[in-house]
Each structure stands twice: as C-alpha cells, then as structure tokens.
C-alpha cells in the first residue's frame, strides 16, 4: 500500500519576529520582515517524509499557495525530503486576503489531479490561526478527517490517529484516503542539511494559478481593523476579600 501524500506548506512571518501593525491598520508589516515555513507545516512535512522512509508512502508532494517567495518555502520542504513541489501563485496583493476556503478548494482540486491518497496539513497557520483548511478540505472531498494528530500509525488500509483534544487524547481510526492535520507533538522536524538543500535544487516545482484549477479567490471577508492587543494595565492590591468582591462588582465582572 503505497500512498501519494500531498502536504500543504505556508509561508508565514517567522515566529520569533515582533509583529507590528501597519500604519493603515488593515494588516501587519510584512515588507522586509523575516518569513519562514509555518511550524505546524514543518511537522506535517516531517511526518510525510517519515511515512516515505517507512515505505508507507511512495511520494510526497509539497504544495504552497502564495506569492513568488513561497517557492523558498517549497524548496525547504524539498530539502527536508519531499519529492516535488507545486506552487499555486497568488499575486502579492491578494495573499493577505486568501482564505482557508480558497486553499481548501485548491487542495481538493489538486488531490483529484494528483490522485492523492493522503493529505497532511499543519493544524493552523501562525499568522491567521484559522484552524480550518484541513477540515474544509476533507469536507469538500467528502473524506474522513483526523485533526490535531499527535501520533499516526498505519493499519491495513486505515490510519490509527491519536488526537490531542481538550479533554486529553482521543484515538480514532480513519479509512484512507483521508485528511490529517498535524499538531505540535506529532514529531520533531529535521533540519534541512546543506547537502540536501543542494540536491533539492534538482527537484521539480510545478507552477500554476488558482484560476487554472477553476478556483475563484475573491474574498468573502473584509478586514475592518487590525490593532495591537490592549496594553496590560497595572493591577491593584486589596486588603480583604470583601473589598475584592466590591471591586469586581463595580467593574461589572460579577
């Protein structure tokens, strides 16, 4: 049973960067800011590559919907062990407005074209925290989904997935083909070694537009305002519980 695995990788602002709101208050500053692969997507690629090393998967395809620079992200995935890449080019101005639904539609279309057996995505992107693409993709394909995966095991024709949920760990079985979303503790991604980065230069990246896949990327949302979270205010000390209760009542908290 050799699977073809599609993995989504998104180019996001690096987690260590201090985010600044743009002067027009409709987004954040991205110009000249360090970007890297979404950490959950690294975990997704790592898992797919491990499946290939265990001979469960035969091919790993890294897909990114984004601007020209998304090719760097795909190349990182190739350096980590993906076999080839697909870059769905989104013009720089539209990148911000790209929604999980658009990406899900694109992924679904690519699944059909590539005849994929498994889709692995990061559970959410650290820029919009939507946590929706995997779920939407599964729905569009009418495939089973196993989200927040912290462990994936293969059993004949099925996957046994351990999910991290609020109450603890949930173990489910899903039939293949399926969509899985990777959670933090699924694995520790490997470093792309320099020799592998050099080898990755020879791997192919196919380029296309969303329109080529018949997907309309017009936004359904409009961002009204982006602001910093409020600065934390100083607290006050009270002498006794009664004063505390009074103050809480005054503040309308109870």
């Amino acid at each position, binding site marked *: 049973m050799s699977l073809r695995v599609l993995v989504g990788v998104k180019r996001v602002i690096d987690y260590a960067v201090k985010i600044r709101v743009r002067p027009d208050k409709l987004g954040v500053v991205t110009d000249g800011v360090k970007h890297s692969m979404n950490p959950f997507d690294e975990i997704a690629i790592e898992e797919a590559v491990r499946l290939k090393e265990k001979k469960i998967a035969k091919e790993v395809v890294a897909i990114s919907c984004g601007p020209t620079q998304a090719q760097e992200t795909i190349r990182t995935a190739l350096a980590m062990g993906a076999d080839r890449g697909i870059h769905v*080019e989104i013009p720089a101005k539209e990148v911000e407005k790209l929604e999980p639904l658009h990406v899900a539609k694109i992924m679904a279309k690519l699944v059909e074209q590539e005849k994929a057996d498994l889709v692995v995505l990061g559970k959410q992107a650290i820029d919009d925290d939507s946590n929706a693409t995997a779920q939407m993709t599964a729905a569009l394909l009418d495939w089973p989904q196993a989200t927040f995966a912290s462990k994936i095991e293969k059993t004949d024709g099925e996957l046994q997935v351990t999910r991290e949920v609020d109450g603890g760990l949930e173990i489910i079985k899903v039939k293949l083909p399926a969509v899985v979303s990777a959670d933090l503790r699924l694995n520790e991604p490997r*470093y792309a070694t320099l020799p592998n980065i*050099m080898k990755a*230069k020879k791997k192919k990246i*196919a380029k296309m537009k969303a329109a080529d896949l018949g997907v309309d990327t017009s936004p359904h949302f409009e961002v009204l305002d982006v602001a910093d979270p409020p600065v934390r205010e100083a607290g006050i000390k009270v002498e006794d519980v009664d004063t505390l209760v009074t103050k809480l009542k005054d503040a309308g908290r109870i």
Partner: protein
Amino acid sequence: MLLPCRLLSSVAPQRLWVGLGSRVTGSVNSLTSFRAINTSPKDASTPAVQHADEENTSTEAAKLKKPKRAPFIKNLFLGRFDKSVLEFPEVLDQDQHELLHEMVVPIERYFLEQVDGPKIDRDAKIPEETLQGLKELGLFGQQIPQEYGGLGLGATEYARIAEITSLDGSIAVTLAAHQAIGLKGILICGTDAQKEKYLPQLACGDWTAAFCLTEPSSGSDAASIQTRATLSDDGKTWLINGSKIWISNGGFADLMTVFAKTTEILPSGEKKDKVTAFIVERSFGGVSSGPPEDKLGIRGSNTCEVFFDNTPVPAENVLGEVGGGFKVAMNILNSGRFSMGSSGAGMLKRLLSWSIDHAVNRKQFGNYLSEFAMIKEKFGRMSANIYAMESMAYLTAGILDGQEDPDCSVEAAIVKVFSSEGAWKWCSECLQVLGGLGYMKSYPFERYLRDARILLIFEGTNEILRLFIGLSGLQTAGGELREVVQKLRNPLMNPGFIIGKGIERFRQQKDNPKLDLDIAGHLHPTLQPSAQLLEYCVKRFQYSVEMVLAKHGQAVAAPKNQLDVARLADCAIDLYAMTAVLSRASRAYCIGLKNAAHEIQLASVFSAEAAERIKTRVRDLEIGPVQNHDDLYSRIADAVVENKGYVAEHPLTRTFW
C-alpha cells in the same frame, strides 16, 4: 533619491537587479560594461519549472575566463591603485545566491536551538550529539569539492556561513581547525590520489583534521621547528619524531597536516634543513596526544600537545614537495584568514542588537541609556567598524572567487588584524553598555569577549602580521624602487633625478600631493569628498614608503625598525578598509539597496577618521624617532628589561628628612 550614476550605461531611477541574466563572475575588464546591467525582466519571478538537468553554474563560470590582476595592497606601496576594486565584486550568480540564502536558514536555526554555548564553555567540551548534528548539516566539508562529497562552496559562501558559526566560538574554531587549515593543504596542493583517499571521509566528518605546525620553541618563527622527518633507506617511508603544542582538534583528529624538518643534500654536498609537509593518519602509529589545555576562551575547542614517536609516514603522503613545506604552511594560513572578518562582523552584529535592546529599556537619571551621547557614540563607532570589517572580508572573498590565481596574502592578513582587534574592542564596549550585568556569566557578553581574545594571537599574531603586511609591501616596492631609493640615498651623485623627484617631494613635504588617480570618477558622486581623501592618503602612503626605504634600506627588516614597518602596515590596513567601505557604499547606492544612505554615512565617517590616522602616522614617520618618541620608549624599555622590572623609585621614597 537615486542620483544618476556615471557608472551606469542606462540612467534609470528604478531599482536595478544586479546579476539577473548576467553570468559574469568577476569580469572587471571594462567598468561601464560590467555595470551595464540587464534590466529586462527576463525572469523577474523564478522560472516556471525547475530544470532537472545538471546545474552547471561552476562549469559555466569556468568557461568565462577569470581576470588576473596584480595584488592590490602590494601595489599600493608603489602608489599604484588598482581601481577595479572600487567596483565591489558581484561573485554569486542568482542560483548560487539563492542556494546560499537557503543554506543560511537551517544553520542559524541549529545554532540557536541545539547549541548550548554556556554549557560548552562550562564543561570545556562540545557534546558529541552537537558535533554529529554539525556533521550531518554538512558543515565539515564546506569547501571540499562536490565530487569528493563536500559542498564545493567558494570563499564568499564560506565567509557568509562563518557569520553564523561564530554564534559559538568553540564550534567556530573546531570547524576552522578542521577545514580552513587542517585539511586545506590537501585541497590546495594535494595529489589526486591524496584527494580521493582522504577528502570523502573528511567531508562528512567521519574523519576530522588538525594542523600541526607550532612547537614549544617555534611559534611565530615557524621556520625554526625541530620536529624531524627522516627517510628510510628504501626511500618509501618517513619517520617523524617530535612534539607539537597547542594543536586545535589535536586530541581526536584522525588526519593531521604535520610540518617537519627534512634534510636536503645540495649539489655541493652541503646539507640544508628545510620544512616538509606531511599527511599523517593517527592510525599510522606513534601518535599520542596530551590532555586538553584549560583556556581563557574557546574552552569547548580541544587544544593539546601532539607527540610523534617514530611515526611511519608513506612517501606518497608528502604534501606538496619535499622541502617546500614552509610555502605550503603559508599558503594554507593565507587562504583561511579572510573569514575572520565575516565571523567577527557576524558576532558583533548580534552583540550590538543585544546591547541596544538593553539600552532602550534601561533608564537612569530619567533617560534611557540610548539617549546618552556616550552610549550612542559606542553604537555609532561600532557600526562603522562592523561595516569596515564586513566590507573588507567580502571584498577579499570576492577577489579570491573572481580572479585567476589571486594573491590575497596581504589583504587577508589585513582583514585578520583589523577584525581581531575590532572584535576584542567592540565586544568589550558592548559589555560596558550593560555595566555590571555585562560582567556576569548569566549574560553571554563575557563569554564572547573571552572567546574573542584568541583572535589576536592565533593564525599569526597581529604583531607578526603587521610585519608581514609592511615587509611584503616594502619588498614589492623595494624591488621596483631600488634604483629610485639608491638615487634618493645619494643625492649628490644624482642631481638630475633629485630635481625631478624634488618637485614631487616638495609637494609631499608641503603635504600637498598631486591627486591624479581619479578615484572619485569610479565611485558614486555622493562619495566624492571621501574619494578625494582616499586619493590623498594613497599618495601620502606612497611617499612614506619611499621615506622608510630611503631611511632604512635593507635594514628595514631589523628588529629595531619594526615600529616604522608597523606604521606602514597600519596605513595599509586603513587604506584597504577605506577602499572597501567606499566601494561597497557606492555599490549600495548605485543599485538601490535599502538604507543605502546610511551606508554612505558609515563609509564617510570611517574614511574621514582613517584618513586622520594615516596623516598622523605619516607625520610620525616624517619627524623621525626622536620627535615621535620611538627612541625614548626604546630606551625606557631597555632600562626596564635590564632591571628585570619597573625602574622608577617608589613615589614614597625619601632621600632627606
């Protein structure tokens, strides 16, 4: 606002992409044609489909013949300024550039996530897992050609990666000892058989290398080593006997480049001792290592004595020619030095950010530290010095990569001297910004400072390198100027020459040399004042070279004349730095880099101060050893040495009551 630049054939105000569509690596034959950048959006975005066929950038570049130019600094001693260096080299083509920047990412992450600097320093050991990770990343074979399993990177890429590995001094030195010197000999002058035999396992780190030259009684004076290699009667095996000291990686290296004395029998029957380089495997036998030295800094780097007791070395393991070892050693050391500029700059840039972070958060006397002029001065000066360090490092790397058979020995030495002293000084200043906190082990500053101290000592002490810079240049100049100097030293015998030279010297003595180099014509107009300064300094330098040669003649290399040689060396250092910063800033402005105006400021202020320093030194040479106090200090030193200590009577001593 981008002013029209005379260098460009198309005066276009938009951002120009250098290198796009241009596969010229270092073609500097015609300035205007080099800058005739193809601005057509050939592939403004990267190609639609990456080609699966062989990436043949290196062979393509090889087909483009590299220019051969005379050594820059050596010729500066003759007043010859090779203006091609005013075009900052563009070495990497687009593929190499992208590849390099892809490589930088995981290396940086690895160092930030997996390297525990304080622990390495505390335990005086780099953990095996950390070393293994570095090997897997491919960092042990950066400059080994791909056909032998290495990354085949050039000087420029190596320098860029050095900016990151300097995040940990112990690791940086371990890596450098292995590849910049340990195995470099095989790369430079190894036979094909030697390369095939050893490079593959060295590239992946299965084997590590060390460079064994220094001995207890032979440090700076490398030609005086006493380790001996004697040839067996059948001529097939050399036996090496001797001991080496302070060998980095000496405790575990599998392969060592060992320098030993061999006896040569001259045609006259006379015996002469010469140095020969050998490739020695630890497995040959008779090789033992002493315990690791307990050091001030780079404590995780293994440094120890290595002993050779009748170590048998097959004759095919001679590196280079028998008797040619000294040159091999010098070539090896010359080739690795320049990267100290980028590693120093990389380290300082980080420390600068950390100190700024402190200064903008800490308030005293109602102001943030960053508002006080004394703190701001540190940040400003440091930035200019980092700029000079980087510029020189990459200019040198660019020459190494872009020219045919380049002689960068003096330039590399200059980079090393400037960067090591800069790293030490500015590390200290960053520590100072943090005050007491900077002194604490819980902050990284003291560790970086201790790690930086060795930079002034190893790979050639800065004193030796100053002599090397000065004397190499003087030798070049002396050879050509011999006649000139002869005449200068015998004015009465050569009146015609003296009159002609006299006009030139008259102008020099009035500190008003004729500026006829047109350096300003090769830089962006905004830098014109600095360009004039550079030209003035070049002329003054040439004058001082002639002065020193006329004054000392052959005795210029004598121990007592070192201060004058050092003055020339310091001038050469400042001149190279000025050239590098002006070249780089001009390029930045011309191609429209972000913050180019800031770079212009850095270049201008650095040049202005460098020019002042050069002026002072030339003046010191003019006024002679009495007025410049050399003589007096020498006599004080004589007295102190004879007394085996401080001479002046204690201030409390009385002779009367």
